[in-house]
């Protein structure tokens, strides 16, 4: 799951970068940026952090 989280975070970054070549529209680029940031945050906070929490120190004992 950690790798999935890392990949999602990277994918969220690459989305607006590649959107630069796909469209000239400021609105569409704005949408790609927001979507990319959300994907990255889901990867980090939703997937990666959850994977770390599964074996958190306060759950062990």
């Amino acid at each position, binding site marked *: 799951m*950690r790798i999935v989280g*890392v990949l999602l*975070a*990277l*994918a*969220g*970054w*690459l*989305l*607006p*970068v590649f959107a*630069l*070549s796909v469209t*000239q529209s*400021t609105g569409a*680029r*704005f949408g790609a*940026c*927001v979507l*990319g*940031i959300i994907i*990255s*945050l889901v990867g*980090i*906070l939703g997937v*990666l*952090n959850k994977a*770390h*929490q599964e074996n*958190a*120190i*306060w*759950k062990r*004992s």
Partner: protein
Amino acid sequence: MKFRDRRNRCLCMALAMLLLCGLSVFAQAPAAEPPAQAVPAPAPAQASPAAGAPAMDVPLDIKAAAPPSTDELAKGDPGGTKTGTVGDVVAADSKKGLTLADLANQAGQNRIAINFVWTLITGFLVMFMQAGFALVETGLCRAKNANHTMMMNFMVYGFGLFAFWVCGFAIQMGGVGPYTTLGGGAGLNSEYSITLFGKSFGLWGTHGFFMTHGGAYDVAAMVMFLFQMVFMDTALTIVTGAAAERWKYAAFAVSSVFMGALTYPLFANWAWGGGWLATLGSNFGLGHGYSDFAGSGVVHSVGGMTALALSMIIGPRIGKYSRSGKPNPMPGHDIVIVLTGCFILAFGWFGFNPGSTLAASGNGALRISSIAVNTMLAGCTGSFGAILYMWMRYGKPDASMSGNGLLAGLVAITAPSGFVNTVGAAIIGVVAGVLVCVSVEFIERVLKVDDPVGAISVHGTNGLWGVISVGLFADGTSNYGGSWNGVNGSVTGLFYGDPSQLVAQLIGVGTLVGFVFTFSYVANWLIDGIIGQRVSAADELAGLDIPEMGALGYPEFVLKPEPEAVMAAGD
């Protein structure tokens, strides 16, 4: 007749003197009122040795400027009117005497000297922020970890400096080209780039390793190195707060060197070193490209994202969460040094933001006054926002969160400080003050990520807010040499008519969250696998001062034993 002849002779003599003095340079501006002392009257156009060209190498009659005599100077100058005159301008050839070329060179060097001194002194202020960070972080930790926390803050300066000298500066600034405000650095002109979508994407610089390679042995480059180094070190010291009280010292050393050598310089190159984020404006028409005046993103978010990655890997302190996942308060041991540290940081921020003009003379650099006031205001409204939020929510004005509110406002104004007006600065600050409180609660209670000092919220969350706020509040009045990131005109945000600037800023946010976090996470994951990031439970419960550092921070204090629940959680 006699009178007229005498007058004509006088006029001829005056003209001849002016010719000798080589003052024909002023012929093009005959209407301009010359300064009373230093500059003699303009000469007629026909007096020029070549039409329109100044006689730069003709000796000047400096007596015309009436410099004070040695006798006059010997009497002292209590009014300050005789010190610093034409007599203090150095002639290149003492036999020839002072020429217009000497004056012009002196004027140019004075401008650069002012900018050197300004940038160096503001850099020294930023360096002193390390003391502020050390006090804030140590005060917010428990007394049993005081030596360890202080020593992380102390040595991060050395580890970071070493890494930045070896390769960090080269990666960051090795391709930026000449610094217009510092008059040099032309040798740092080699940027490794790739071509994507038909456009050049600058990735890292390749000149300046060890500050000797590729023209880095240069006075202007040294000024830039010092200023950029203390910025980089600020980013590094953010991480030590988030990972405090459980970070193995050896892992801290390796992680800090890595961050100073690669993580920070890479993003800083993209934003400040002529990299691909800076050229989003010239390459893709997105405003003035990613614009981060003093580093909300480059410094604070990079530190905050790395702090988040490390806090996830290292896990919470023993006893921070009960078995049901409920967070337990772990108050710091000295709120007095916490708030003292906050004041030191606020003082140092006057170096951070106004110093980022890299100039006090020319190129619109007098905006330093506006930047300083913006900095002051946002810090103030940041602490207002935090104190009001805590007072309304919990019934008391929380001291540590008030301090964090001040820092949050300062972090948030760092990127927009050079582009916004005072109303924008005040709004940015108050939003940051509230945001830091909400973010601390979210990270602690929902994410269950332990951050003893609130560094992720102060620097990470509010660094991102600062980057976004440039795209909203930049009012289009700044003018740093007529262009920014190679795009003519002033940086202008959404509220002042340029929505594309906001898109450039959001791409920067996406890069910080998506790339910088991931890069830091993978690096620290590897370090964790190789040497281990976390101390043993026994060491953590004992406090890290003796197991890690070999000496207590407060050897004469009787430390309060941990509650039984905390001890049990470490078993």
